[in-house]
C-alpha cells in the first residue's frame, strides 16, 4: 500500500527531491569517499587484511566508479512501484510449488513404482521435470513481471530506460553504473533465479522425505529458521554471514539491489548483491544435481521412516479428536485439513499481512509532517490546542514570507540561495499550511456537536480509502478468493468421493449435507474475516496509529458524506461497516456454495469459481470498466455503498 498525499503534491515532492539529489550527487559521493579515506587511517580500519580495512577499500572503489555517471531527471514512479512490488515473487513461488505438487502426484496416484521401473523413468525423467520447472518459473516470471511493469507504466507513466539508475534518488544505496533498463532486467533475472533455487530446494526436500505431510513441515521449518535468522541476527554480529547467506535474505531482492551493504565473508568484504549471486549459482548447481540424483536413486518402496511414524502418531491424535466431534467438527476438519484448506488460509493471511503494510517513501516529508502535527494535536479539541495551532500557523506564515522575499532577491540576482531550493521551501510551507487547513476543515465539519475531536484520518484512508490501486478492497478480495477455493468445490468434493449417493440412502433429513456445509461456511467466514481484518488493522495501527474511536465520525473526512451516520461515533461506524461486510461475505459464500453444486469435480468448480468470482473482482479493483461492478467484490464493498 502507498501512503500518499494528493497526486500533484506527490509529484512535485518527487521532482524537487530528484533535483536536489542530482544537484548534490557528486558532493555526496565525494563525501562518502572522503570519509572512507579518513577512516582508513584510523585504528582497526587501518589494519591490513582485516574485514574493516577490506570494507573501507571496497566502499571507496564502489563509490568512486559512480563519479563516471551523471544522473538525470526521470519519471521515477513506475520504477519505484515495480521494484517495491514484491508480491510477484510470492506468486511465482506458489506457482513453482504447484509444479512440484504435480510432480509428486505420481507418488500419490500409485504410479511411482511403475514409472521407476521404466527405462527413462529415473534420471532422465527427473532432468526433464527440472527443465519443465525452470521453464515454468521463467515463463511465469516474465509474464508476471512484464505485466506488472506494464501496469506500473499505465498507472504512473513511461520513463526513459537509457538513463543511469543512479538517477532514481529514492534508491540511495545503489552503486551500479548501469542504465535503468539494464538494472530492471537484472532485478527481474535475480527474482526469477531466487525462485528457481527455492523451488529446487523444496523439490529436493519433497523427494527425500516420502511423507508429504512431513515434507511440508520440513520446508516450513527450514523457511522459518531462515526467516528468523535473517530478521534476528544483527548487522555487526559475528553471525552476520548467516544473516545474508540465507534463503530469506536472497528473497528480499528489493533491499539487496537498492541498499549498499558489504558482508564479512571469512574476513573479506563482499557486496551483498555479489554474495547473493554466488549463493544463487551454488544452490542452483548443487540443488539441480541433487534433485536429479535423488529422484533417480530414491526407491518407491522404502523402510518405514521416522516421518511416517510421526505422521501416523499425529493422525491418530487428530482422529481421536475428530471422533469426539459431531459432524460439524468433522466437516471443519475435512475442509481445513483433509482438503488442505489450512494451506490456502495461511497463504492468504501472509498475503494480507504483506499488502497491509503501508509503504512510505523516505522523501515524503509531507507525510512525516502531517503525522507530526496530528500526534501533537489529536484528541478532544481544547483551547490550548487551538492556540497551539494558531502558533504553528503563524510560524509557517513567517517562514513563507521569508522565502517569498528570498525568491524576489533571486530574481534581482541578489539572493544567497538557489532558485530551486527556494521554490521547494515555499512549496513545503504551502503544504504545511494545507495540512493545517485540512485540520480546520475537520473542525468545521463537527460544528454544532457537543465535543469536537481531531483524529488522524490517515489510518482510515489506508484501510477504507481509494489510495493507489484501491486498498479498501484488497483484504476483502483475499477473503473472497479463499472462499472460492474452499467452498466452490466443496459439494463437488462430496460427489467425487461418492458420498452424495451414500448419504442419500441414510436416515437423515433432506439437504443434510448442504445444511452442514452452510453452517461450516458461516463459521469459517467469521473466523477468516476476524483474523484477516485484524491483521490489516494491526499493520496499519503499527505504522500510523489509530486512536479515539469514541470521537465523532464526522471528524474523519471520508465518513462525512453519509447522511445516516453524522451523529455516530467512529466506533459505531466501524461496527456497522464490519457487520455489514460480514453479512455480505456470508451471502457471497452462499452464492459460491450453490454455484459449486453445478460441477462434478473440484477442479472444474474451483476453475469456474475463479473465472466467475475472482477475475471480475480483480477487474473491479483495477477499475476496469463499469461492467465489473457486477462482481462479487462490488457487492461486498460496503464502504462504497454507505459513503
Amino acid at each position, binding site marked *: 500500500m502507498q501512503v500518499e498525499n494528493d497526486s500533484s503534491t506527490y509529484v512535485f515532492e518527487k521532482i524537487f527531491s530528484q533535483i536536489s539529489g542530482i544537484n548534490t550527487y557528486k558532493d555526496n559521493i565525494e563525501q562518502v569517499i572522503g570519509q572512507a579515506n579518513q577512516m582508513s587511517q584510523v585504528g582497526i580500519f587501518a589494519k591490513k587484511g582485516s574485514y574493516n580495512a577490506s570494507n573501507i577499500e571496497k566502499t571507496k572503489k564502489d563509490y568512486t566508479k559512480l563519479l563516471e555517471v551523471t544522473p538525470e531527471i526521470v519519471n521515477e514512479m513506475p520504477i519505484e512501484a515495480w521494484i517495491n512490488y514484491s508480491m510477484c515473487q510470492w506468486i511465482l513461488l506458489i506457482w513453482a510449488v504447484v509444479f512440484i505438487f504435480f510432480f509428486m*502426484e*505420481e507418488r500419490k*496416484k*500409485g*504410479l*511411482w*513404482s*511403475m*514409472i*521407476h*521401473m*521404466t*527405462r*527413462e*523413468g529415473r534420471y532422465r*525423467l527427473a532432468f526433464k521435470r527440472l527443465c519443465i520447472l525452470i521453464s515454468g518459473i521463467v515463463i511465469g516470471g516474465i509474464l508476471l513481471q512484464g505485466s506488472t511493469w506494464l501496469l506500473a507504466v499505465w498507472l504512473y507513466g513511461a520513463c526513459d530506460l537509457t538513463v543511469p539508475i543512479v538517477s532514481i534518488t529514492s534508491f540511495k544505496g545503489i552503486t551500479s553504473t548501469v542504465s535503468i533498463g539494464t538494472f530492471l532486467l537484472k532485478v527481474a533475472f535475480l527474482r526469477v533465479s531466487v525462485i528457481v533455487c527455492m523451488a529446487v530446494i523444496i523439490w529436493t526436500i519433497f523427494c527425500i522425505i516420502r511423507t508429504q505431510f512431513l515434507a511440508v513441515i520440513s520446508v516450513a521449518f527450514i523457511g522459518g529458521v531462515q526467516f528468523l535468522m535473517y530478521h534476528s541476527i544483527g548487522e555487526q554480529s559475528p553471525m552476520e554471514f548467516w544473516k545474508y547467506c540465507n534463503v530469506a535474505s536472497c528473497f528480499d531482492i528489493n533491499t539487496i539491489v537498492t541498499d549498499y551493504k558489504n558482508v564479512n565473508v571469512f574476513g573479506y568484504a563482499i557486496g551483498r548483491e555479489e554474495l547473493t549471486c554466488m549463493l544463487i549459482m551454488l544452490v542452483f548447481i548443487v540443488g539441480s544435481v541433487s534433485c536429479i540424483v535423488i529422484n533417480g536413486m530414491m*526407491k*518407491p*518402496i*522404502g*523402510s*518405514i521412516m521416522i516421518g511416517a511414524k510421526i505422521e501416523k502418531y499425529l493422525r491418530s491424535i487428530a482422529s481421536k479428536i475428530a471422533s469426539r466431534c459431531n459432524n460439524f467438527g468433522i466437516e471443519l476438519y475435512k475442509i481445513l485439513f483433509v482438503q488442505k484448506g489450512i494451506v490456502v488460509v495461511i497463504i492468504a493471511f501472509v498475503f494480507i499481512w504483506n499488502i497491509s503494510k503501508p509503504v512510505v517513501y523516505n522523501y515524503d516529508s509531507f507525510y512525516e509532517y502531517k503525522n507530526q502535527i496530528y500526534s501533537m494535536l489529536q484528541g478532544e479539541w481544547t483551547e490550548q490546542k487551538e492556540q497551539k495551532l494558531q502558533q504553528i500557523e503563524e510560524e509557517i506564515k513567517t517562514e513563507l514570507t521569508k522565502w517569498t522575499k528570498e525568491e524576489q532577491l533571486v530574481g534581482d540576482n541578489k539572493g544567497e540561495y538557489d532558485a530551486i531550493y527556494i521554490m521547494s521551501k515555499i512549496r513545503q510551507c504551502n503544504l504545511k499550511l494545507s495540512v493545517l487547513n485540512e485540520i480546520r476543515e475537520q473542525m468545521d465539519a463537527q460544528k454544532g456537536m457537543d465535543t469536537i475531536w481531531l483524529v488522524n484520518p490517515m489510518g482510515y484512508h489506508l484501510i477504507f480509502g481509494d489510495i493507489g490501486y484501491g486498498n479498501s478492497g484488497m483484504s476483502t478480495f483475499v477473503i473472497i478468493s479463499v472462499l472460492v477455493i474452499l467452498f466452490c468445490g466443496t459439494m463437488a468434493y462430496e460427489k467425487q468421493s461418492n458420498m452424495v449417493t451414500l448419504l442419500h440412502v441414510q436416515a437423515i433429513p433432506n439437504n443434510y449435507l448442504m445444511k452442514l456445509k452452510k453452517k461450516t461456511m458461516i463459521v469459517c467466514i467469521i473466523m477468516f474475516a476476524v483474523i484477516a481484518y485484524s491483521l490489516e488493522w494491526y499493520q496499519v495501527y503499527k505504522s500510523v496509529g489509530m486512536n479515539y474511536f469514541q470521537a465523532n465520525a464526522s471528524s474523519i473526512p471520508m465518513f462525512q458524506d453519509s447522511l445516516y451516520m453524522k451523529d455516530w461515533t467512529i466506533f459505531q461506524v466501524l461496527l456497522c461497516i464490519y457487520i455489514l461486510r460480514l453479512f455480505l461475505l456470508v451471502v457471497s459464500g452462499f452464492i459460491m456454495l450453490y454455484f459449486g453444486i453445478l460441477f462434478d469435480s473440484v477442479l472444474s468448480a474451483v476453475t469456474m469459481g475463479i473465472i466467475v468470482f475472482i477475475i471480475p473482482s480483480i477487474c473491479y479493483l483495477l477499475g476496469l470498466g463499469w461492467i465489473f461492478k457486477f462482481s462479487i467484490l462490488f457487492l461486498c464493498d460496503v464502504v462504497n455503498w454507505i459513503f
Partner: protein
Amino acid sequence: MELEIKNVSKSFGKTKALFNVNITFSEGIYGILGQNGAGKSTLIHLITDNLKRETGKILFDGVDIKRLGKKYRSMVGYMPQQQGYYEGLTAMEFLKYMAEAKGIKGKEGNRQIKELLEIVHLDKVAHELVGKFSGGMKQRVLLAQALLGEPKILILDEPTAGLDPKERIGIRNYIAKLSKDKIILYTTHVVSDIETIANEILILNKGEVVKQGTLQRLIKDIKGKVIEISCNMEQLQQLQKQYLIGNVIQREGNIIYRVVSEQPILEGRKVSDISLEDVFLYETLKVHEKGKIHT
C-alpha cells in the same frame, strides 16, 4: 534367459519380509502364491528394483540387475498391484506417457499402443478418461502398459484383483499365450488364477519359499492327505477344532468338511481330485515345531 534370485533377504524394522530366498526363473509362467503378508510383493519390488536390497543378488543372465540398469529395465514389463494412473488422462494419453518413459517413441510407440488397445479390448474407449473406467478396464490399461516394449520379463502383481470371472479368464488366457519366450511372474492369492496356466508354482509363507514345483508334483506331495468328512453342523464345529486345516463345502444339501492332514483320519474318505487350493492350505497353515508337522 534366466533370472536368478540368490540368497535374498529383506527386513522392515523387526519384521522379516523375505528370508534367504533362492529361486531361478526361466521362460514360462511362474505362479507365486501366498497369503497376505507372505512376502510376494516384497519379492516383486526387489525384482523390479523398486526396493533396496538388503542381502543377496538378483542376476539376469549372470549379471546383477543393478549393473544392467536401463538395459534390464527396458526388458521388464511391470503391472503393479496398486492401480496407478492419472485420472485426467485418456487411455491413449496414459499409454503414450508410459511408452515415452520406456523409451518407445514416435511411430513405433503409436503402433504398439494401437495394437495393445485392441488386444485388451479398449480400442473403442481409447480417448476416454481412465478415471471414468470400471475396475476391470483400468486393470486392462495397466496390463497394456506393462506389455509396451515387448518385454522379456513380465511381472504381474495381482493382475486380476477386482475383476469379474469373465474378465479374469480373459486375462489368464491372454497371459498363457505370451509365455513362450518370456519369463512371466504372476503373483496372486487367488489359486484358480494360476492353476491352469502356470508352468511352475512357488508358495511363499512368512518370507520363505515353502514349496516350489509343477502343479502335478505339488499335488503328488500331499496325495493321501486330503480327506472329506460328511457331517452335520454340530459335528462340523467339533471337526474344526480338531482339524485346523480344512474347507467347508456344501454339496447336494450335505455339509462336507475337507481336511488336509498328515495324520490318518478314519472317519473320512481319501480324495483323489486334489487341487492347488489344498496344497496352498496345507503349505501355508501348517505349523512347524522342531521338524514335526502338526495339523
